[in-house]
């Protein structure tokens, strides 16, 4: 069986979301590297795979998938359904809740902080501190909810890692590379959960190709 192909640039947090799931599932895959600065995602051959012109894209035989969470679910359903609590009504609902929380509550506040604090300087944009401050305030409120959740279980959807935790890796990796990483110190259970996540060999392997500055500083512009 041919390995799956994952198209994109490995520094992308969306790409990382999928890669940690591939690694945890032990699925055979190869990365097909693409260049963001070279506009590979806007070329006709990529638009044929993903009409929205984004990455990651997964090819598994005849199946072509996009949207990182859809890809993640497919991989886990196929190779490691226990990470979705498949077959357990309440358990699978808990996984879904915390995948949605990441998508709609956490990621929207982390992204502007990462863009302003890490990326802006490399792409000729002014850092907007007001935007950073506004999102840090929101982040603290969101982390209160996570802290309460993780007071009841080791991981977000129970006492074992699931898709919900894995979906958080990519964006949190970059937030923790900003000067505001210390914000999590006020949320000890959240901090402990994060440290356990990045201690996993699968996560370390994916993180190894994700420099804290997305590669801009070393001239490896994505």
């Amino acid at each position, binding site marked *: 069986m041919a390995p799956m192909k994952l198209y994109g640039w490995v520094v992308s947090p969306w790409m990382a979301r999928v890669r940690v799931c591939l690694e945890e599932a032990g699925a055979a895959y190869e990365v097909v590297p693409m260049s963001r600065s070279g506009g590979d995602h806007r070329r006709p051959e990529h638009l044929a795979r993903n*009409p*929205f012109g984004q990455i990651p894209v997964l090819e598994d035989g005849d*199946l072509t*998938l*996009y*949207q990182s*969470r*859809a890809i993640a*679910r*497919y991989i886990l*359903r*196929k190779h490691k359904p226990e990470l979705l609590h*498949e077959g357990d*009504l*309440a358990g*699978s*609902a808990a996984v*879904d*809740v915390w*995948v*949605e*929380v990441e*998508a*709609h*509550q956490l990621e929207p506040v982390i992204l502007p902080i990462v863009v302003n604090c890490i990326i802006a300087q490399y792409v000729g944009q002014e850092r907007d501190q007001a935007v950073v401050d506004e999102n840090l305030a929101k982040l603290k409120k*969101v982390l209160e*909810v996570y802290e*309460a*959740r993780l007071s009841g279980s080791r991981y977000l959807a129970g006492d074992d890692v699931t898709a919900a935790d894995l979906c958080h890796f990519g964006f949190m990796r970059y937030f923790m590379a900003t000067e505001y990483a210390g914000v999590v110190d006020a949320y000890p259970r959240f901090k402990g959960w994060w440290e356990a996540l990045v201690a996993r060999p699968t996560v370390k392997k994916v993180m190894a190709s994700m420099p804290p500055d997305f590669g801009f500083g070393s001239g490896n512009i994505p």
Partner: protein
Amino acid sequence: MAPVKVFGSAMSTNVVRVLVCLEEVGAEYEVVNIDFQAKEHKSPEHVARNPFGQIPAFQDGDLFLFESRAIAKYVARKHKSADADLLREGNLNEAAMVDVWTEVEAHQYNPAISPIVYECLVNPAMKGLPTNQKVVDESLDKLKKVLEVYEARLSKTKYLAGDFVSFADLNHFPYTYYFMATPHALVFDSYPHVKVWWESLMSRPSVKKLSANMPTSWP
């Protein structure tokens, strides 16, 4: 078995996202209204159900859930039948397509269409704010690009995930319904397959029933 409870207003888009799945699977439910004007969504009782102080929240016996798409999937799984298999989780490829188009609604379609609904309907009627035409125009440009992709897809399949209706299609109902009450409804006329798909969704009994509780103008 006690009916499940959905906390929130039956007019609210994300509450309707859950209700349409409940209707499609034929589950018994009750809507417990949460009074936004009175800030009931921020009350300790409601925050105990939804720690982000948002609607909907959901209760099935001892189980409490929040986040509309997570709630809706729970409902779809619990009441799955030969007549109502909205997630197709028994078939890897079909489930993948349902997931792709569910994510597309959340991350491509909704960010383009919801600002138009807020600027044209919600802000003037509920907040006494004028429509920000710049936001509307930018959103319309984004929406047209998204609808081009939908047109291409729906030229090949009857519904978004394939030739079967699914959770992916139903997710589009609430915000699109309200969009059709804005001055920009005719945008869909340029995308004939999308228009046919929308009309077929609107003809579903579940959608007709819920539409009756979704006013498109407010006093």
